């Protein structure tokens, strides 16, 4: 009996020492910058040896589903959630997130770009800290354009882009005129399409919340999009989201690509891109209006109220979004690969400016993306590539599917938009926006 007693005490003592270890679970997207963050976890452990990090890496659509389910049901499976400028204000408003108050001075919150900070706040409180922020822009192959003697202005127009796509489309040579998102998802194809509709003068809802999907601007924008991707896009457009197109362009298969500014680092990095020295950068194309032509987004780290390890989670988030982390990535992965768009200091850092020829364009894009003025005509909502209402996840998902159906020829543009319009009206009616 005595021996067992001593054994028990011994085990408890050990447990006491080991018990100082906390494990936090972080859910994130399978984008390259996040994967780098995971790779650098040992550096975090060195600094904070009693915090273990458990990673759940998911594709974007699935991450959103899982995280939304988890937080709305208070399950508490995740201590840190990777969310964006869509979720942060809405969930902050619902009281689902732990606000970031009393941020230490060493973190230098004022260094974080204002539009990004605003995008992650509600009612004056900050609910997530940005890991990276982005707008959208155009990437193109300088070498291919030079061959055809075309110069790309700093601010191209969509009509020009259509022409260039035709001229540069060379499937036999493995180069497609233009790569654009087609994967259905409110944060996948609809992010891009919303900006296209905006710049063509369209809007999601009028001032009375009536859906506008059958308006002439929508028809024009979608017809243009479908035409462009079916004639000059790669095969399998409707399976291509951000990461697929990133792969295609970096492997040399696209002449042009309009997508997130965060891709710039990956594309200009010889370690990850076969065309690193051939990439050209320009602002996202415009059509009728510059409003809403490029989006504002930030993937940020937030702590759900249901987490039981708020302190440890906060420690990790401060680490991963700090100037020191950016410098760490600069040292280990190269300055071209640091998470962009979050801090002014990054854009004043000579190391970064030297390694990243796109820095100025990206900074300008982020600073001119205004979610409060996303369209030509007035609207009752904020948000450029989404509408800041809780129902938008359902709306965007459904409309995204219909547009993919138009691209694959399942519906004509009119049929597809009519069905999408009906679906959106249904949702808005059931949610009480429409009578």
């Amino acid at each position: 009996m005595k021996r067992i007693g001593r054994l028990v005490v011994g085990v408890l003592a050990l447990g006491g020492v080991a018990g100082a270890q906390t494990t936090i679970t972080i859910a994130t997207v399978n984008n390259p910058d996040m994967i780098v963050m995971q790779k650098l976890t040992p550096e975090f452990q060195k600094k904070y040896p009693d915090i273990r990090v458990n990673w759940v890496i998911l594709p974007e659509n699935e991450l959103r589903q899982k995280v939304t389910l988890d937080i709305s049901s208070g399950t508490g499976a995740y201590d840190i959630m990777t969310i964006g400028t869509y979720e942060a204000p809405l969930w902050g408003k619902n009281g689902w997130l732990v606000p970031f108050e009393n941020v230490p001075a060493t973190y230098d919150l004022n260094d974080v770009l204002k539009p990004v900070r605003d995008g992650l706040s509600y009612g004056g409180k900050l609910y997530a800290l940005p890991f990276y922020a982005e707008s959208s822009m155009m990437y193109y192959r300088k070498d291919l354009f030079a061959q055809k003697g075309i110069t790309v202005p700093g601010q191209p127009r969509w009509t020009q882009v259509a022409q260039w796509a035709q001229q540069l489309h060379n499937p036999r040579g493995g180069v497609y005129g233009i790569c654009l998102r087609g994967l259905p998802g409110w944060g996948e194809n609809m992010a891009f399409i919303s900006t296209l509709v905006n710049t063509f003068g369209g809007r999601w809802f009028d001032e009375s919340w009536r859906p506008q999907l059958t308006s002439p601007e929508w028809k024009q924008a979608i017809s243009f999009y479908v035409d462009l991707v079916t004639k000059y896009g790669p095969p399998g457009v409707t399976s291509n989201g951000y990461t697929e197109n990133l792969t295609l362009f970096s492997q040399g298969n696209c002449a042009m690509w309009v997508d997130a500014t965060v891709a710039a680092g990956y594309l200009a990095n010889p370690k990850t891109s076969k065309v690193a020295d051939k990439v050209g950068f320009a602002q996202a194309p415009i059509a009728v209006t510059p409003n809403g032509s490029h989006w504002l987004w930030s993937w940020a780290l937030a702590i759900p109220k249901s987490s039981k390890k708020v302190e440890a989670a906060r420690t990790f988030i401060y680490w991963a979004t700090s100037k020191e982390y950016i410098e760490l990535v600069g040292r280990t992965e190269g300055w071209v690969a640091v998470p962009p768009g979050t801090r002014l200091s990054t854009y004043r850092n000579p190391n970064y400016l030297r390694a990243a020829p796109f820095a100025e364009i990206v900074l300008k894009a982020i600073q001119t993306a205004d979610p409060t003025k996303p369209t030509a005509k007035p609207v009752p909502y904020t948000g450029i590539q989404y509408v800041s209402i809780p129902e938008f996840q359902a709306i965007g998902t459904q409309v995204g599917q219909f547009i993919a159906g138009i691209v694959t020829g399942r519906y004509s543009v009119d049929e597809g938009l009519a069905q999408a319009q009906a679906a959106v009206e249904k949702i808005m009616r059931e949610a009480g926006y429409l009578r």
Partner: protein
Amino acid sequence: MPAVPRRRKSSLAPPTFWLLAPAVVFLALWTQVPLVLTLYYSFQRFILVNPDLRGFVGFENYLSLLTDPAFWVSLERTLVLVLSSLGVTLVFGLVLGLLFFQRFPGRAWMRTLAISPFFVMPVVSALIWKNMLMHPVYGLLSWLFRTLGLPPVDWLAQYPMPSIVAIVAWQWIPFATLLVLTGLQSLPADVLEAARIDGAGPWQEFRYIVLPHLARTLSVVVMLETIFFLSLFAEIYTATSGGPGLATTTLPYLIFLKAFAEYRIGVAAAGAIFAVILANLVALFLLRFIGRNLRAEVRG
């Protein structure tokens, strides 16, 4: 069948009730109770992310589905998937079953390899087919087509349902093959001998002796595969996510979307009830059809 007559209930018989109860209660708790709950939820408005909107809404969810073109499309897609997969697996299962029934060198290990797809996790199967075989730029099929001078096909975008059927069939042909093989092994050799002596050719042998004998096995294959195919999910989730458009959105996948992507529990529950009704109708139909045929075989 045991030779000794079994004991009926006597004072020495064990309490069968208590032997059966745990299994029955457990099963009822996990299958019947949820069904009743689903029925209850189907009459509620319940949005997971907006919990304030709860309330009894009668048949509104059912009507919402019946007036939703996506619902009817999903029904049609489900039938297409099930019937196509059945057709392909039966034909190839029969052919391969007959093939491996013959004696030839190497048949043992060849058969072992041939049945492997059935044990591969459906998620993995879908990933292998979607990426390494069917990818329109880097996939093996694309390389094959290019070598033959043909333009590569984007299988999952241009022929989504046939692609899913291909993935499902690849996994289930081995299943059908195994069952056919086992069924063939119970074929009495003397019947075949008699037929051969009478001068019957291979086709007649097949048509008048083998096929009728396999009727029972084939009906088992049809029944089981139908049950599994009606609720296929992993392949669609992994390979196409129901798209493009609604091309591969079957009823189970639609319900999944309604519940976990649109967070509309009430509508999803109504859809689930429809799915259960569909499964029951199919089961009834199958039992009658197969039962009738089997009885005819036994009599004739």
